[in-house]
């Protein structure tokens, strides 16, 4: 099944490159869609699709990018003929500060009021899968990027009931051990000789931060590391003096952050860089947001971070960023984040086209057909490959869960080497764009 999709799409992709009005997208999913639509124009009755994203409140910076990514994808899907000739039309609900009391009603409203055939989100925090039963009752497709291991638990509990729910990115549990194996590669290849085998952990005060942190501390011994310090910090921590002095009193080989707020992390670098220890600094996700570099400037150079939720810097990824910035401007936009729901829209649209059309709430059979296609397919989007674990219906991370780069979403390790430019990807192969460089504050 999946291989035929691949073959189909390559053919159509060439066609697509030759004469598409959208330009070079090079998406496998786009190719599938274009060929399934067989050149039809999207002039049928619009298909309502919902998105419940945080457009206000503290997560609005991400939420606004999600909305942009979804709208860009909808435009491009519609330019390719929509889904079997029907254009898709997004309805947005604001989930404010998220949490179940905001997310559940928002999604219920999308279904009851707008009769949406699918809900495609970026990230909503702290929902505790409260929204899953709501989705399961109507059986619509729900694709989100909540990065939450509870999604695995829900699908283990009742795979039949939740079969139309997909988490487009890998759960956070992969990040912890992923870091340790990245460090192993780095040291074994001789690129980095840690001063000692100690890791200091600075955790963000959310589940995401805590789960990744325990992934690191639980597996540290296995990789020959010891945790010498664990601190939990909250949103808006701008004064790092006490933590820097703790680091200085027992300097570790590696400082690992699971706190992800870019401006907080930038302040750490500004305060750490003039008083450094001989430690590698790793941060989760935050430095991928350009504000990190803009605030910390040269102090940001040398920082390593990882994320799956960002576009690659290959032919497809760069073209996506260009289109994104072309549409929304380059000031105060972050196409890296917009990429998450963007890919999901193409996945959904092409799967629905293959399955013979979308299903409205209550049309459980049709939606389950779409879910079957989604589950079995492999997509190459701007974030790399998306393939779902068959049991968990969550993204497979590469190289954390598969050795084959064509079968998993790259868990990208990036390093900021010049603060004026996007960070370079230093792992995993074959996506790297530059080799690791020793951070300027480190000796030897």
């Amino acid at each position: 099944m999946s291989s035929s999709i691949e073959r189909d799409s390559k053919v159509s992709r060439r066609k697509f490159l030759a004469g598409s009005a959208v330009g070079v997208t090079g998406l496998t999913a786009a190719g599938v869609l274009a060929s399934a639509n067989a050149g039809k124009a999207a002039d049928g009755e619009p298909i309502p699709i919902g998105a419940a994203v945080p457009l206000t409140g503290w997560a609005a910076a991400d939420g606004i990018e999600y909305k942009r990514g979804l709208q860009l994808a909808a435009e491009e899907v519609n330019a390719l003929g929509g889904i079997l000739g029907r254009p898709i039309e997004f309805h947005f609900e604001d989930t404010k500060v998220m949490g179940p009391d905001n997310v559940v009603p928002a999604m219920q409203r999308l279904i009851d009021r707008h009769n949406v055939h699918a809900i495609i989100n970026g990230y909503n925090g702290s929902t505790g899968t409260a929204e899953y039963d709501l989705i399961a009752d109507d059986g619509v497709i729900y694709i989100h990027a909540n990065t939450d291991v509870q999604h695995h638990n829900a699908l283990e509990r009742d795979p039949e009931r939740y079969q139309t729910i997909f988490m487009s990115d890998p759960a956070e549990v992969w990040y912890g051990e992923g870091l340790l194996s990245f460090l192993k590669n780095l040291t074994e290849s001789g690129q980095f000789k840690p001063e000692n085998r100690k890791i200091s952990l600075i955790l963000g005060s959310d589940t995401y931060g805590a789960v990744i942190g325990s992934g690191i501390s639980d597996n540290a011994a296995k990789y020959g590391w010891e945790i010498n310090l664990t601190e939990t910090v909250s949103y808006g921590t701008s004064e790092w003096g006490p933590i820097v002095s703790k680091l200085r009193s027992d300097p570790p080989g590696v400082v690992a952050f699971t706190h992800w707020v870019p401006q907080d992390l930038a302040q750490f670098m500004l305060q750490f860089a003039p008083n450094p220890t001989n430690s590698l600094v790793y941060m989760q996700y935050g430095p991928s947001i350009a504000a990190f570099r803009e605030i910390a400037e040269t102090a940001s150079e040398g920082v390593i971070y990882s994320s799956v939720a960002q576009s690659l810097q290959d032919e497809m990824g760069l073209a996506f960023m260009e289109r994104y910035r072309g549409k929304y401007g380059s000031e105060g936009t972050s196409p890296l984040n917009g990429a998450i729901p963007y890919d999901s829209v193409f996945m959904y649209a092409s799967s629905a086209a293959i399955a013979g059309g979308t299903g409205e709430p209550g049309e459980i059979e049709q939606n389950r057909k779409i879910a079957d296609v989604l589950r079995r397919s492999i997509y190459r989007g701007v974030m790399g490959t998306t393939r779902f674990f068959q049991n968990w219906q969550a993204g497979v991370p590469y190289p954390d869960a598969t050795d084959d780069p064509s079968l998993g979403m790259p868990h990208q390790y990036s390093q900021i080497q010049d603060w004026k430019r996007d960070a370079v990807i230093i792992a995993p192969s074959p996506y790297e764009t530059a080799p690791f460089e020793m951070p300027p504050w480190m000796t030897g």
Partner: protein
Amino acid sequence: METAVLVILGGLTLGGMYALSAIGLSLIWGALGMLNMAHGALLAIGSYACFAIFTYLGISLIFAVPLAMIAGGIVGLAIYVVIVRHMFRHPSFETNIIIATIGLAIVSENLILRFFGAYPYKQPLSIQGGFRIGEIFVPYQNLIILACSSVLVAIVGVLLQNTRMGRAIRATAMNKDAALLMGVPIGRVYAQVMVFSGCLAAVSGIMLSTITTLSPTMGDSPMIKAFIIVAVAGLGNVYGAFYVAIGLGVLEAVFQYGIGVRFAFPALLLLVIVSLIWRPYGFFGSKTVVRN
């Protein structure tokens, strides 16, 4: 030694930031008896104004800061004209104004979100460099924050003590009705204080954002800390608020180092709760300022 310097330095910076947040709040409470829940919004408005004037209008920072202060003052005046003027005579002004300013905070936070988005912009006003004490690097930025908060406190103090306007403000704070009978134009006093605190908040916001960066919600957390400081100091006591802010900042840094970062702020809150039970009107407060 080195550790102590770093911790104290961090604490002083925190204290300076807390003081910056608390000054305007303390002034408005003391003078007008209003708990301004839009204080955080005023901080954000001031710093976005500075950012916008510099970035979009291309005006030098030397002028951008005063212009942002004027913008803050205008917003303060607008709050008086649109809201406070209609309310301060109402018997439940004290509670109603809290709600009104909550509404105002929601409105201005969302207006900023609409105009600027939620991207964490860098405040263009920031001072690079620093000097070394032994091994430790001390950034100028931190010292400026500390200096700026002390200067603002001093200005407010002098203004309240030594000017005609200050006397009118203090008279109003002591007894609104008596002040009115003595010929103090209360309405004008309210307007003056609102304008003044708007200017103050703009400066505070700009200084805060050099460290916390810009975001529509940037004022929320400083405001919550300012509440606590103002309560511990005794409502309306501007000097007291400054000392308490510095004290709590250093204490928080020591707690962060001693018992761990995550427990520091809750421990501080606990301390505050206990101290308020022990000294219900704050360390520098007196019963007379409190209206019942």
